[in-house]
């Protein structure tokens, strides 16, 4: 186990009803890194994140998260991890403040009132703290979800498509926030479908059909693809389209054969 790694999983496998959704996945994320997690719909990103934080039990493979075993020590992982789920999962019939107070008490934060106040100010939520979560617009909801995920000062932040349905300005602010948090020493694993967001990550990986197809810095991923030989200044998007064409062909061939 490498203590410099926040996430270190090998050969992770998970099936639902006979279909391998995550297939022998290896992933290493260094502490303090912002790690982008890309891949088409249904490629297994959410499932992988759930496996990492102990919300799902892997069928095969092993690994550790913040030095705790993903199979047996999910309790410890839960306490040191903040997870912002893909679907908004706070209480819509509770106000911003009530939601945060609830989360603070569940994590057993020492001075809950104080922690809530601090978090509200940090994320500019103080003015709306009495608004019901259900009445918030997309961007503010995401902000609240982020607030709930970081209030207990986790070491690892798992963000599952945190900016889906958020306008460009709010998206940029959200990412500024993530960079501030990373600068404070937080490790961030973030899944996304936006290429501009991928470019703001220290490292990225690309998942399709539960398998990792590429990983490294954005530059490395473009380099590895070999597209530079075919095209002048290929973008990340070009690379992913190219990768997917290969996989889909493979898949079709395997099915036919």
């Amino acid at each position, binding site marked *: 186990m490498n203590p410099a790694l926040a996430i270190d999983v090998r050969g992770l496998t998970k099936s639902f009803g006979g279909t391998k959704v995550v297939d022998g996945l290896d992933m290493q994320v260094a502490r303090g890194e912002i790690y982008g997690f890309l891949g088409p719909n249904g490629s297994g990103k959410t499932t992988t994140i759930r496996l990492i934080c102990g919300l799902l039990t892997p069928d095969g493979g092993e690994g550790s998260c913040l030095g705790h075993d993903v199979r047996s020590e999910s309790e410890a992982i839960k306490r040191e991890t903040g997870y912002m789920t893909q679907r908004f999962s706070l209480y819509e019939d509770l106000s911003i403040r009530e939601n945060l107070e609830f989360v603070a*008490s569940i994590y057993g934060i020492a001075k809950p009132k104080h922690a809530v106040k601090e978090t509200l100010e940090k994320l500019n939520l103080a003015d709306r703290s009495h608004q019901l979560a259900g009445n918030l617009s997309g961007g503010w909801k995401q902000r609240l979800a982020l607030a709930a995920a970081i209030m207990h000062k986790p070491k690892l932040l798992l963000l599952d498509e945190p900016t889906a349905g958020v306008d460009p300005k709010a998206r940029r602010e959200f990412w500024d926030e993530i960079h501030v948090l990373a600068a404070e020493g937080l490790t961030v694993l973030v899944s996304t479908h936006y290429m501009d967001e991928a470019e703001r990550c220290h490292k990225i990986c690309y998942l399709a059909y539960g398998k990792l197809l590429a990983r490294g810095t954005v530059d490395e991923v473009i380099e590895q693809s070999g597209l530079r030989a075919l095209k002048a200044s290929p973008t990340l998007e070009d690379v992913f389209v190219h990768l997917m064409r290969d996989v889909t062909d493979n898949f079709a061939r395997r099915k036919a054969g």
Partner: protein
Amino acid sequence: MSARFSLRRLGAMIRKEFIQMRRDRLTFAMMLGVPVMQLILFGYAINADPKHLPAAIHAQDHSAFARSFVKGMENSDYFRFVATAESEAEADELIRSGKVQFVLHIPPQFSRDIERGLRPQILLDADATDPAATGNAAASIQFLAASVLARDLKGPLAAQGAPSPVDVVIHRRYNAEGRTELNIVPGLIGVILTMTMIIFTALAMTRETERGTMENLLTMPVRPIEVMMGKILPYIIIGYVQTAVVLAAAWWLFEVPFAGSLGLLAFVLFFFVAANLAVGFTFSTLARNQLQAVQMTIFFFLPSILLSGFMFPFRGMPEWAQWLGEALPLTHFLRITRGILLKENGFPEIAPDLAAILAFLLVVSLVSLNRYRQTLD
């Protein structure tokens, strides 16, 4: 480790549950509205004092005494004689077919026996399928016997304090227990609690799953027992409020008297409500959505009202149905509440039924904690 139970986390769960309860106006209104509505619905059924019930006469004596007895019954407004039976068989047929609710049998030599002071028997056959419908009418005839005939009597038989000159026997058919209307209120408490408690917990949990908040709950270090208790305790309080509402309304609106100890009732109530909440919690771990949770609740609720002795006399059911009934907490709770409120039962009398409720609570809690998943697998 957070493997230990934490009062703080439990407190957070309970507080959250109360806030949500308050925000959900409709549900909150139902919690208090349902008991009052049911009580009023059933209550007017309780209070109903039907008059002019169809009756038949099977007279084997046509004396003046017999005639004034019949006249007296009609004057009481409870009875309306609509048929005459010539034989036992005909009388039987009239009551079985529902053409009449009562048959009055006047024996041969009725007047001769009265005059000799032999206290002849008058038999009143009553169709007691619906005891509330026949109760008052049947009760009135006892007074009639004394007052009506007294006018026709002379000599020592008419003396003050003399025993009633006839012996009225009421034969309640189809409902041997002849339950009184007072039976309904204690039963109603149990029925209302069974329905509301199960449905609210079943919904409270499935709502978390359906709205996706379960995922967030699972990502946090909260123990299953804390979630379960956090869901159950607020509703125990609601259960007490509902019971108080029913008892107060029954006392105030319908003047139902309470004989026994309310403290003992409150004690038993805790376990009965907890048992129902545990059932609701178990359903919520099985149901995929709120609709399924409601269906499961009905699936449990129907046998509860049918087999517990609320609807039909428990002893009137076939043995297999009684066995099923014994497995339901409502059955035992009904015995306890009726015992406490009507018969002034104390702890020793109710202990066996309380033990049954505790056993039920234990088994269901274990099942539900076992079913509750800390992962999304």
